[in-house]
Each structure stands twice: as C-alpha cells, then as structure tokens.
C-alpha cells in the first residue's frame, strides 16, 4: 500500500502514511546521518543530525527527518549548504566531548568539521540517550537514567538496579557511540558494588554478536 509520493533529493519516493521522512529515505536507499535514532526505540529527536530541508507549499523549513511525517508532494533535500553547515557545527559540538568516537570522526570528514573548533570538555558521553531509552523501552529495567537538566545533564547508572541487571545484559554498551556507557557502568560498579559479579565477563565475541542483533546505524546506500 503506497499512498504518498514525495520528492527526496530529486527522486520520486513512495511511502506509506504515518512513515517518517527518514524511513521513506532509507527505504529508497537515500542516506541521512543519525546519531540518536534506533529502529527499536521511539524517536527521540535529540541529536538533530538528521535534519533536512523541506519545501511544502512554497515554504522552506528545517525539520528532523526521524520525526517528520511524510506528506504528499513535499520536496525534501537531505543536503544543502545550510543543512551541511548545521551538521558540521553539531558534529563540532559533539567532538568537544568525544573527539575520537568513530562515528563522529567519520561524519566529521564528510561535513568538514573541525574537531578543535570549540572548547574541549572530554566527558565522552554525547547524551544521545540510546542507553537510557534502550534500558527503558526494550529491557524495561531503567538501570541507567538521565540526571539533571541543561548543560549539566548526564547519564548515570542506578546502583541498586545496575547491581542486579547490568552484568548479565550489557546490551546498551554496544549501542553507545562513544563507549561511555560501559565506562560509566564499570565506574558505578567499582564505587557502589565492587567484586560482586556472579558470572565471568562476556567475551568480545558475545558482545559483537549482541551488537549485531541490535544494529544502530541505518542501512547505508
């Protein structure tokens, strides 16, 4: 059932009502960068990297494709000087926290981001919320949560829950674009409940298997 036709980067794309622009683009093999998106999780709209230009009835606006619903006859541009500059600056802002995160480094090359443009604050977490939302929506354990607001927002493991759940699971570690989730867990463990693990550590192979079960990057072209 294809009931909506829209234009993405000059291509006629067919989509179902209720789909997002990101889904329509992915289906048509058009790549849009994302960081906080995950197909198993409710759209978050936090990283804003998936922002695209939409022209509708003569109006141009900038929307995040992971949430913007497809509509008849809209014209979507996944790249334009303005869109590219938005992504360039957002990546620069994120690199201030996690200068070596592979995903970010790759995107920085694509968009010409300067990793030294802004003052460093190597906190490593980019607050994409994948760990938090995965633990909430998929595992329903809420072992890791957001704390505080604004510029001091951070994620943290809740010791009482983490102690019971995390070692057996570890699924969010593989989702994390900066490997901070794992570090944060280990730190919590060391501080709050050291030496209480019941099972040996998982092998790298186990973790890799898990991470393949939960892909985080959209299918590229």
């Amino acid at each position, binding site marked *: 059932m294809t009931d909506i036709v829209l234009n993405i980067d000059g291509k006629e794309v067919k989509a179902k009502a209720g789909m997002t622009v990101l889904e329509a683009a992915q289906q048509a093999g058009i790549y849009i960068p994302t960081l906080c998106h995950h197909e198993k999780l409710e759209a978050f709209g936090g990283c804003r990297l998936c922002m695209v230009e939409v022209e509708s009835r003569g109006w141009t606006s900038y929307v995040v494709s992971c*949430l913007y619903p497809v509509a008849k006859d809209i014209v979507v541009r996944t790249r334009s000087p303005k869109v590219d500059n938005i992504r360039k600056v957002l990546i620069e802002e994120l690199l201030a926290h996690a200068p070596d995160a592979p995903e970010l480094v790759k995107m920085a090359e694509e968009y010409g981001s300067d990793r030294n443009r*802004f003052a460093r604050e190597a906190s490593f977490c980019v607050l994409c919320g994948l760990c938090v939302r995965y633990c909430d929506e998929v595992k329903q354990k809420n072992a890791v949560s957001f704390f505080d607001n604004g510029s001091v927002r951070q994620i943290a493991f809740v010791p009482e829950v983490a102690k019971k759940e995390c070692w057996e699971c570890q699924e969010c570690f593989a989702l994390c674009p900066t490997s901070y989730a794992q570090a944060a867990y280990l730190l919590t463990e060391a501080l709050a409940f050291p030496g209480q693990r019941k099972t040996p550590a998982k092998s790298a192979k186990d973790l890799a298997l898990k991470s393949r079960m939960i892909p985080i990057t959209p299918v590229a072209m």
Partner: protein
Amino acid sequence: MPRLQSAAELEKYRAQILAGRNPAKPCIAVCAGAACDGMDSAAVAAAFVAAGAPLGDKIEVRTTGCHGYCEKGPNVVVTPGDICYFEVQPADVPEIIAATLKGEVVERLVYHDPNTGAKAVHMNEVPFYKHQTRLLIGDNPKIDPMRIDDYLAVGGYAALVKALSEMTPDQVLDEVKKANLRGRGGGGFPAGSKWETTKNAPEKIKYVIVNGHEGESAAFMDRAMLTGNPHKILEGLIIGAYAIGAQKGFMYTRHDMPLLEKHVRNALAQAKEYGLLGENILGSGFSFDVELHFDVGIFVSGESSALMRSIEGNPPEPRPKYIRTSVSGIWDKPSNLNNVETWANVPQIISKGAEWFTSIGSEKSKGTKLISLSGNVVNSGVVEVPMGTPLRTLVFDIGGGVRDGKTLKAIHFGGAMGGSIPADLIDAPLDFDGMSKLGAPIGAGGLLLMDEDTDMVEVARYLMDFLTKESCGKCVPCREGMKQMLQILTRITEGKGQQGDLERLEDLIQVTGVASLCALGKTSGDPLKSMFRYFKPEYEARIAAGSGEPK
C-alpha cells in the same frame, strides 16, 4: 453557602453583597503582594487590624494583592477617594486611621514629586498610575483574594453568567476571535484560532490550561494577577472551557510561592462551593472542573509541550513531535494552553464585547498589556497600558526615567529569549509585531531598563548563563550550542576574547536557532542577535582590547 443554582440566584446574591456594603465607609487596603510583603507589609496590615478592631464598623481593613507601584511599598490605598500612601510603616498606622476617620489625608505619606516636591494624593493624580489603563490589575486594591464575595462585588462572574445564559459556545468563540485577543505568554498567537483548533479537534475529551509558570526573568505580573485576583483568571478559564467544550482544566503555576498557592487553592474551593465549578454550573448543564499543578522549577517547564508532559507526571521535556498541542496535548488529547494574562482578558471581552476591546490598543495588538518594570528604573512595578503606547511613556512618564540621574542606554524586553534595543528607539510603540521587528519581542512583558554603565557583553553572558541552567538539555544544538556561546562570552568579559569569536558566535546563533527542538533553544541567541545589531562595536572593541575594561 449553598450552591447557586442559576444565573438569577447569582445576581440575587451579588445584590445582597452590595446592599450589605456601604461605599461611604472608609476601607484601608494594605498591599500584601510579593514586593510589599518583602518590606514587611504584614506588620503594617497587622497594625491596621489591631487599631481598627475597637472601632467596630467605622472602618474596614483589607489585605490585597499587588497594587502595582511595588517600588514604593508597603502600599496602602484608602477608599473612598483612592488616597495612596507609600512606604507605610506600622508606626504610621494610628495617624492614618485618625485622619481617615476625620475624612482627612496624612500629607507626609502621599506622593511627592522627587524634582518639584508637588504632591499627588489620589491614585489618578500619581504619575505612576495616571498614565496607565488598569483594566486587569485595577481591581487588585479592591479585592481580598481570599474572598470570592469581593470579586463578586466588583462584578465578577457576570461574564460567565452572560456566556452561560445568553450565548452559545460558538458565540463566545466568535467574540474572542473578533476581539483579536493575542496570547500574552510570549508568542502573541491569536487565542481565538487556538481555541477553535482545540474545539474542532475530533477527540471528545479536551483540556484547557492556564500557564502560570512565569519563568521569564524580570517578569512578575502573572503572579501579581494570580495571587491578587485569582477568580478573574478562573472566570476566563471557565468561559474558555465552555466555548471550547472542555470538561477539565489545569492551572499550572509556580511551586515556590506559598501565598499564590494559598489564594488559588482557596479560589478553586470557593468557586466550587458557590457552584461556579463542578457539575451543572449555575444550572446551565455545563460541567467543568479544575486541577492545580505545580512546576518543577526550570524555565523550560513553561514551554507548552514540556508543561503538558509535566502535568502528565513526566519530566518537563519538550515533545519533539510535529503536531500541535492544541490538537494532541495532555495524554494526547486536544489541549488549549493560554497564559494567565490571556485568560484574564476573557471576562471583559464577553461582558463589554469585542468592539469595545478592539477600540483599545494598536492596529494589530488589541487591549492592554501588563508590563513588569525593573532594572535601572526609578519606579519598578507592575504596569498596565494600552498596546501601542510609546515606550517613552512606559519608561519616563510611568517609570520616572533612569535611576540616580543616569542616562538610558538600552531597553531589554522578553528576558533571556528577548532582545535589547538602544535608547534612541524609545519612541517605538509597544506592539507585538513592531517590537519583534526591532529585535526586542515583548515576550511575556518583562521590561528591563539599562543605564549608561551597562556592559552589554555581560548582559548577554548573564542571560546565556541563565538559559544553560534552565533548558532541559535534551537536544544537542541547545545544550551544546549554548554551552559554547556561554564559554565564548565569558572569555570576552574576562578580557580573553579571540579573533574569530564573533564569527563563532554568529555560527552558533544560527545553528542553535534553526536546529533546536523547542523555542527555548531556537530563541536563545536572540539577545545576542540584538546586541550584534545595535551594540556590535562594543563587542569588537572588547575582543580587540583583550582586556577586562570596555572601551
């Protein structure tokens, strides 16, 4: 008090209240608003009560909400005649009572012009008041906010009676649309069209909400209204619910103001007791109830979708979806949110009609606007003027100009999401669209005066610092963009500005403005934008000098 069963019963009851009151009997109204309370007006009120008690029914003492002229508190107004006494101390009480009983005036406590020494006794002669049009806040000195009868005595709930007994919901909506009432919470969005969207949304369950969060720095008029005259806002809300077809309302307001909470709780209970809330209001068949909610204390909880999430019991994070809350709000039901002052305008529009309302104000901004005056101004306080009033009237005639004989450098509107304009634009009219074009949108109405000594880089830094703490921190452009802007601004104020800082700032303003999820991030660069428009040389000099002193 038995529930009033019909409009006629309410009018009969109102007549009874009025018959029991003698307008010639002196009444002493002591302001217990936040500013006066801070100057211990409670001790003044207690002294009046103690001194008045043995006088039996010769004199009445009433504690009220904010009168407006906060600068000169504790404020006392004596009726009849609206005699204004300023900076009243408990020791002044016997003298005021003695004079009042004799129909005289205590000359030393009335207003004296700081330059000429000329006296002003009555409210309509005091410069601060005489240039105002106090349609909304004017009732404050006449009302003890704990007594619904005081509100009824000044004609309260007559608009509700009219709406329920003489008008259909569509007619009420039509009147508000014709009045072109625009939202007072910041956006200036037409209330009538928002009401209509919620009304026409297919879901049967609908909500109406009062936004009483008032998080904008330098804004304090919503709390003055809500604390001083809660029934006025409630009456507007009930009328709105009737027009829209909502069964339930929410009042979302500050968690940190005990007096406000007490007055609003009491107002809701009294309205319920009188039959103005609950099942079958005044026998009209219309039922409606209101729940009180408190904010979580960060600025972003005043944003519409964050506020609604907060009411649902979730953290106040703006919702990223591309759908309006008027269609899908609290628990995904159509939810119409308006600011305190917007709701407060509704009763008079229904009582006096759209034609009367549109005769006040400028071409596209109708009615009056409450303004909180503060900063380097002589007279700080809550002010109400017709839209279109030149800023000069606000600043000089009402505000009394700049403190300490200094000259005016800039006027800032709209708090951390607003902007600053230079003193030479002082003749601009107070108007939603006009002020936005100038780069200083009215916002909620916090007007900050800045004198010649003001460091504009520091102002931008201060406002940015505020926002970095008050955002939710969910989206990257807002959280990280503001953090970087703050760092750069801080460096500049410390005399460590670098080449390229202005370009970096401009890039950040642009990206944060386009890419942020909610209006907090989107407009966070607006103060800075206005600075670059009008005060750029100050920034350039500051960076070039590389020293802490402005050039």
